[in-house]
């Protein structure tokens, strides 16, 4: 790019999908905090929702997908998914349509949040495109259902490489491949093989392997064992939520999806219909996800400042939302962060 960018050139456009339930409230918090921090971005909002799904039409309108492809950056709140029936998950559709092949979720013990688990500092890197999420299921005969898990060498290698690159760039010491190759000999076996092979190219990063159930057990009893974890799709889903639980829950943990040219920050918690519209939601997860996105945009100073403000407010503990045992409203908590800026 050119050497001296003019202020308008520097104004990135980011696509914002507020989402369902508490989505609009927590998105509002992100907009307010970013505005207060004078982050040089402008928003382009797309209202995607389960409610807007029309049978027979694309689940996600192509205008929204094109916008994210064009601008390269997006943030999204939670989108509701029907269980056991109905249309495919919109979250999943987005990831697949945009080729967001890796999901990154850091979970670190947060000062000021008391849990039973200390010294947690793990980043889960989840292969995001295949595995159990390919949506290939059928009823063989009445009462017998088969569901396919698909593992490919190319996607596994890409995921593994991403994990090692991530470890190197973020000065992490160790990558652990989490798998169930004792039972899924071919599928997880191939994933594990790819991790092993990739590990050889990164002698500076220590490589370990762990069975998924052992990893889950040890995350509870000895979380220091783990640093960066690389996992297949469903395993990544499960382990990342478990890790989030160890540090205070989904309301607190950031998540970023990465593709070849696209970044989508998202809160991984649900739509929380029980508290939607009541100004009670905790916007931290979406805020910290947005901070991760800023780092991808090389806006490190803004990212650091906002992150510091968030963690300071949490540590002080005076303006916490209900899910963290506090009494503050979403807007009050947001205000407190802005005051810190």
């Amino acid at each position, binding site marked *: 790019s050119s050497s001296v960018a003019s202020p308008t050139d520097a104004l990135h456009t980011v696509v914002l999908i507020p989402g369902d339930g508490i989505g609009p409230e927590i998105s509002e918090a992100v907009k307010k905090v970013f505005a207060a921090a004078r982050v040089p971005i402008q928003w382009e909002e797309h209202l995607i929702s389960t409610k807007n799904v029309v049978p027979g039409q694309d689940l996600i309108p192509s205008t929204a997908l094109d916008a994210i492809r064009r601008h390269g950056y997006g943030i999204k709140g939670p989108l509701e*998914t*029907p*269980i*056991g*029936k*109905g249309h495919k*998950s919109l979250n*999943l559709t987005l990831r697949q349509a945009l080729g967001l092949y890796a999901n990154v979720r850091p979970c670190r013990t947060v000062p000021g949040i008391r*849990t*039973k*688990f200390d010294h947690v500092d793990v980043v889960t890197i989840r292969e995001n495109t295949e595995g*159990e*999420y390919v*949506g290939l*299921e*059928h*009823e063989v005969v*009445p*009462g*017998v*259902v*088969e*569901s*396919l*898990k*698909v*593992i*490919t*060498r*190319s996607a596994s290698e890409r995921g593994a490489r991403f994990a090692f690159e991530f470890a190197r760039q973020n000065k992490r010491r160790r990558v652990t491949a989490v798998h*169930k*190759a*004792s*039972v*899924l*000999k*071919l*599928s997880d*076996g*191939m994933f*594990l093989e790819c991790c092993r092979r990739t590990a050889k190219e990164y002698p500076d990063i220590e490589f370990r392997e762990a069975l*998924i*159930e*052992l990893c*889950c*057990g*040890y995350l*509870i*009893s000895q979380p220091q064992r783990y640093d960066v974890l690389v996992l297949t799709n*469903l395993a990544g*889903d*499960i*382990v*990342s*939520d*478990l890790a*989030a*639980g160890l540090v205070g*829950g*989904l309301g607190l943990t950031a998540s970023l999806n990465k593709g070849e040219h696209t970044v989508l920050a998202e809160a991984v918690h649900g739509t929380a219909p029980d508290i939607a519209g009541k100004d009670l939601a905790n916007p931290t997860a979406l805020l910290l996800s947005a901070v991760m996105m800023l780092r991808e945009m090389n806006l490190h100073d803004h990212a650091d400042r906002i992150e510091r403000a968030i963690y300071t407010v949490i540590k002080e503990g005076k303006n916490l939302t209900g899910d963290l045992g506090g009494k503050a409203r979403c807007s009050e908590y947001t205000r407190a962060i802005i005051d810190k800026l």
Partner: protein
Amino acid sequence: VYPSATSLGDTKLITLLPGEGIGPECMDSLVSVFGAANVPVEFEAYHIPEPEKGLPSAIVDAVNRNRLVMKGPFHTPYGFQGTSINILLRRGFDLFANVVHVFPIPGVKAKYDNIDIVLVRENTEGEYSGLEHSAVDGVVESLKIVTEEHSLRIAEYAFRYAMRNNRKKVTCVHKANILKSADGLFLECARQVASKYPFIEFESMIVDATCMRMVSQPQHFDVVLLPNLYGNIVGSVATSLGGGTGLFPGANIGPSGAMFEQGVRHAGKGIAGKGIANPTATILAGVMMLRYLKMFDFADFIQDAVTEVYENTDIRTPDMGGRATTKEFTAAIIEKMEEIMAELA
């Protein structure tokens, strides 16, 4: 737990498969404790020299005869292409329900107080079908099978378990928002069975949310009904929260027999042969078996002695932060049994 088939008073023959890794050490401990308690059972031990070659027919015959197995773990190496002994036993004898109980042991420091969770895991199908193939080089497909028959059967077991053990709630764990057909069927079957038990609360929970909820609020859970692989993962989470893998027992129940073992089945290769494994889970699995056989007095007696050791001594194996060997820990239990007997006399 269903009543035993034979009348009381018979000496029960139990097929003992010590297994690999820490299995033999833990099994020795169990046999000593049962001996010291004069439990009227007799163990027939079988060693499997080459587990990768499958189940020897003598063992198949023995299991069919006794229909009761005490088992240690069998380790499955990653490269192994056959079917593991563990899976052969479960599938061969149709031991469809895996029951793991995590409960407070006085004197054991758990992550939370009052964790009391029973995991009822489908033990025969799901991701453990062993059906995998490579369509073209670099592409592997793995089949997860869910059947209505087996889903109804395990759900029925979970609710009956809850009813007979005076439990209040069953949580069905699934991922039916993504696996709409497969996990959808499992969930639907659970719902159907739940409707027959209106006095037991029923809820469903997505597997990732379950893990998160369990580490932050394990007291929420009572009986948890799970498909095979989720049962493996959540079982490990629950035992870890409860104080450790080496503590909690498990049973595999079928229509015509049962097999008892450590709840989370680990070979513990890292510490095998060193004589420092924790035999608690194995001994308590023996206690589970005694309850299955309706030998409640013996069961309580042994469990009380184990609890006494944790509550009133600091004798612990290394996994529990102590320095005792398996033998020393076992001796402590036997000593407690003698104390209890002396008090009664």
